[in-house]
C-alpha cells in the first residue's frame, strides 16, 4: 500500500516530536516534562472509532500509509500540496561524469541550497523511479560543475531526462514545525480544533477536518484558496481568538498554510472514507440484530396465531440473528469489500479531493465582482436597506431589523443538517455543531476582512459551514450586492454610536491643551 503507485507518496521525516517541543519551550522542556509527555499523535474521528475493528484498522492503515504520523509525515504526492524540495533533471553527462558510479550532471530549478549532503533524492521518472530507489540521498553536490553524487544503490543507472526531487517534503516539515509551535495548542495536532487551549475559546478554533473554511474568496461550492488562508494567518480573525501572525515571516507563513491544507485534506479524506464505510459500524450491527429480533417477534405472533387456527402448514419463522453471528457476517462482508472495492473507494476519494483543492486556486473559482462598487451614497444605502428587509434575502430574519444580530431565527429551534433531528438549544449552529450568533452588524467587526470586496464575497457565496447563505449569481445582481454592502458597512457609523466605543464612563480626554 505504501507505494500504491510508484513514487505516489513518501515518508519525509523521522524527527521526533520532542525536537519541535524542545524548540518551542527551550530549557523549560526539561522542567515541564515536555520530553516525557505523551507523543504527538493524529487523532481519529469519532466515526472511525465506531467502526467494527477490521474496518477501523483498514482506515487507520490507509491513513498512516497516506499521511503518516506527526513524527513521520508522509507526503502523498497526488494531493496538491507544495511539499517543497528542488526539482532537477539529468542532463547530458559532462566529462568525467559516470552515472554508473552514481554521479550525474543535473540542471536544477528552484533552491539549490536544498541539494545539501544528506537530503533525500526522489526519482520521479526514469529507471530509478519508484520503490527501489526510495532510500537515495545526496552525497555531494558540486555547484560549479553541477554534478550530483548520490548515495544508495548504483543500479539501475539513470538516463538523460530523468526527473528527480531533492529534499522532498522539506516545506511540509517546516510547516509542521511552525504549526506545532504556533497553532497546535488551539487547533490540535490533527487540526481537529481541539488543542489544549480550545476549551476556553468561543468561537472554537477551526476544526480543519471537514475541509470547510468560513472566510474564503471562492465560489460557494469551492474550497478555500491558498491566498485566503495566507490572509487569515497574517491578519488573524478580528473579534475571535484567532490571532494575527504578521511577524511570522513569508516562508513560515507559506509553509504553515501548506500544512493546514494538508491537515484539512487528511481530515476530509478520513471523513469521506468513514462515510463510505458507514455500513460497517458497531451501531449498525446492533441495529440489524434489533430489527431482526423485532421482525422475528412479529412473525412469531403471526405463526402462533396460524398454528392456533389449526393451519398445520405454517412455516416456522427463522430464529433472529445473534449478535456474534451478525458481527461475523459484517466482518466477512467487510473482508469482501476490502478485497474488491476499498482501493477504488480510496482512489475516488483521493482524486475527488485532489481535484477540489486544485480547483480552489484556479482563477475561475474566485469571486470577482463584475462591476465596481456602486457609489456609496444615501440612495444606494437605501436600496441596500430595502433589500436587507426584503424577503428575497431575509437578512433581517437572522441579523435583526436593526442589524444587531438578534433576528427571529435566533429564537427558533433549527434542524441538524441532513436529519430531521432538532438541535437541543435555540438559535443557529455551524457545520461543526457549535452554537453560532449572526453577526451584530453595528459593531463594524468583519471577521472575513473589512475590504468592500471581502464583504461582497461574504454576501455572494455566503459563509461556508454556517447557515448564512450566498446570494450571488442567482438571487442578487452584483449591483444589488454592492447596495447591500454599502448599507451594511454604514451601520457602524449610524448614531447613536454603539455603546462599546465609549463604554466605561471614565475616559481621559485625548485633546490636551496646547503646551506653551
Amino acid at each position: 500500500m505504501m507505494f500504491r503507485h510508484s513514487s505516489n507518496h513518501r515518508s519525509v521525516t523521522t524527527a521526533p516530536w520532542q525536537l519541535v517541543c524542545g524548540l518551542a519551550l527551550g530549557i523549560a522542556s526539561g522542567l515541564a516534562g515536555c520530553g516525557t509527555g505523551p507523543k504527538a499523535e493524529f487523532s481519529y474521528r469519532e466515526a472511525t472509532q465506531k467502526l467494527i475493528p477490521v474496518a477501523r484498522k483498514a482506515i487507520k492503515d490507509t491513513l498512516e500509509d497516506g499521511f503518516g504520523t506527526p513524527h513521520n509525515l508522509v507526503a502523498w504526492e497526488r494531493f496538491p500540496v507544495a511539499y517543497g524540495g528542488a526539482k532537477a533533471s539529468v542532463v547530458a553527462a559532462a566529462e568525467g561524469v559516470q552515472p554508473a558510479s552514481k554521479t550525474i550532471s543535473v540542471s536544477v530549478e528552484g533552491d539549490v541550497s536544498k541539494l545539501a549532503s544528506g537530503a533525500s533524492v526522489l526519482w520521479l521518472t526514469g529507471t530509478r523511479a519508484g520503490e527501489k530507489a526510495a532510500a537515495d540521498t545526496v552525497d555531494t553536490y558540486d555547484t560549479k560543475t553541477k554534478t550530483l553524487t548520490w548515495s544508495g544503490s548504483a543500479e539501475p543507472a539513470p538516463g538523460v531526462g530523468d526527473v528527480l526531487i531533492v529534499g522532498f517534503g522539506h516545506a511540509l516539515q517546516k510547516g509542521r514545525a511552525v504549526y506545532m509551535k504556533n497553532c497546535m495548542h488551539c487547533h490540535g495536532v490533527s487540526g481537529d480544533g481541539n488543542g489544549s487551549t480550545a476549551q476556553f475559546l468561543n468561537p472554537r478554533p477551526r476544526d480543519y477536518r471537514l475541509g470547510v473554511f468560513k472566510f474564503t474568496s471562492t465560489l460557494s461550492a469551492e474550497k478555500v484558496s491558498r491566498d485566503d488562508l495566507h490572509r487569515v494567518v497574517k491578519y488573524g480573525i478580528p473579534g475571535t481568538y484567532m490571532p494575527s501572525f504578521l511577524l511570522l515571516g513569508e516562508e513560515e507563513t507559506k509553509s504553515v498554510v501548506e500544512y493546514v491544507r494538508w491537515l484539512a485534506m487528511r481530515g476530509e479524506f478520513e471523513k469521506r472514507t468513514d462515510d463510505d464505510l458507514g455500513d460497517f459500524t458497531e451501531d449498525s450491527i446492533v441495529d440489524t440484530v434489533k430489527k431482526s429480533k423485532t421482525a422475528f417477534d412479529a412473525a412469531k405472533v403471526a405463526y402462533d396465531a396460524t398454528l392456533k387456527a389449526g393451519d398445520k402448514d405454517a412455516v416456522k419463522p427463522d430464529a433472529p440473528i445473534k449478535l456474534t453471528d451478525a458481527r461475523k457476517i459484517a466482518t466477512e462482508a467487510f473482508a469482501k469489500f476490502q478485497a474488491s472495492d476499498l482501493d477504488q473507494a480510496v482512489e475516488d476519494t483521493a482524486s475527488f479531493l485532489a481535484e477540489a483543492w486544485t480547483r480552489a486556486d484556479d482563477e475561475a473559482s474566485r469571486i470577482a465582482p463584475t462591476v465596481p462598487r456602486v457609489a456609496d451614497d444615501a440612495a444606494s444605502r437605501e436600496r441596500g436597506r430595502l433589500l436587507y428587509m426584503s424577503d428575497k434575502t431575509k437578512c433581517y430574519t437572522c441579523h435583526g431589523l436593526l442589524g444587531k444580530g438578534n433576528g427571529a431565527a435566533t429564537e427558533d429551534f433549527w434542524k441538524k443538517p441532513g436529519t430531521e433531528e432538532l438541535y437541543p438549544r435555540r438559535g443557529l449552529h455551524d457545520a461543526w455543531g457549535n452554537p453560532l450568533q449572526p453577526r451584530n452588524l453595528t459593531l463594524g467587526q468583519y471577521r472575513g476582512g473589512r475590504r468592500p470586496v471581502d464583504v461582497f464575497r461574504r454576501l455572494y457565496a455566503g459563509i461556508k459551514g454556517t447557515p448564512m447563505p450566498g446570494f450571488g449569481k442567482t438571487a442578487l445582481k452584483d449591483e444589488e450586492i454592492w447596495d447591500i454592502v454599502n448599507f451594511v458597512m454604514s451601520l457602524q457609523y449610524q448614531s447613536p454610536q454603539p455603546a462599546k466605543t465609549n463604554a466605561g464612563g471614565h475616559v481621559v480626554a485625548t485633546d490636551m491643551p496646547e503646551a506653551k
Partner: protein
Amino acid sequence: MGKLWSLFFVFSAVIAVALCWFAPDWNWWFPGDGKAHSTLGGKIDDLFHLILIIVAVTFIGTQAALGYVLWRGATIKPEEKALFSHGSHSLEVIWTIVPSAVLLFIALYQLDVWAQFRIKGAIRDSHGKMVRPEPVAELTARQFEWRIRYPAKGKPLQPQPQPDDIYSVNELHIPSGRPVEVTLRTDDVQHAIFIPELRIKQDAVASLKIPVWFDALENRDYEMLCAELCGWGHYKMKAKVVARSDADFDAWKEQASAEQFDDGFRKPAEAK
C-alpha cells in the same frame, strides 16, 4: 576562617562591579544597539546613569566599610577592646539625612523628565521648542495582539471610528523625527505597550484611553512588546513600530487605504 569570609564578601562585591562594568561590551545592557532612539529616551538614560552612579558609589562605599569591619573583627587581638557604637545619635542623624537628601535630589531632578513623559503632553523638539504631538493612531491591545486605527491621510484622529479610517494589526506605523501621540486602550485585560529602544512603557487599562507621547528619531522598525503579563498568550504580543518619514508615512497610508477599500473589481485588461 573569619578572614576568608571577609575576603569572600569583598570579592563578591568586586565581581558585581566588574560584571556591570563589562556588561555593555557583552551586550548585557540596553536593548538593540544600546542607544535610546527617542529624544526623551536619551534623558531617561541620563537619569538611569545618574542613579546608577549614585547607587554604585553607595554600594562600593558600604561594601568597603563592610569588608573593613569584617576584616577588623577577624584580626582583632584578644586583649583589644571593641568599640561599642550602637545607639550613636550622630550616626543615626547622618545616615538618615544623607540618604533623604539624595532621594529628595533624585525626586526633584527627575521631575522634568517625568512631566514631559506623562503630564505635559509635549516633548521638546530638536530646537528645544515644546510641540504638541499629533494623535496618529488608536492602539488597542487585546488578547493577544495589537489592533490599530489611523485617521485617513490629512485628517485628525477622531475618538470614534470613521468610515475612512485605516486599520492595521501588529504593525504600528508612525511618522519619525517628531513627537506623536498614540491613544492606548485595551479590549479586555490590562496590557502594556513597551518599545524598548524608544524607552517607552505604558500600561493599557480597561475603560481608559491613555495618551502616550513619544518620537522615533530614525526611519526604521522598532520592536514592540506587551509588558504586562496578560494571560497565557502574553509572549505572543510581539509587534513592530514602523517609523518612517512624513512622506513615506503618507505613502503608506495611501497604499493601506487603497488596499482596505479595494472593491476587487479589475478591468479585464488588468485582471491577472
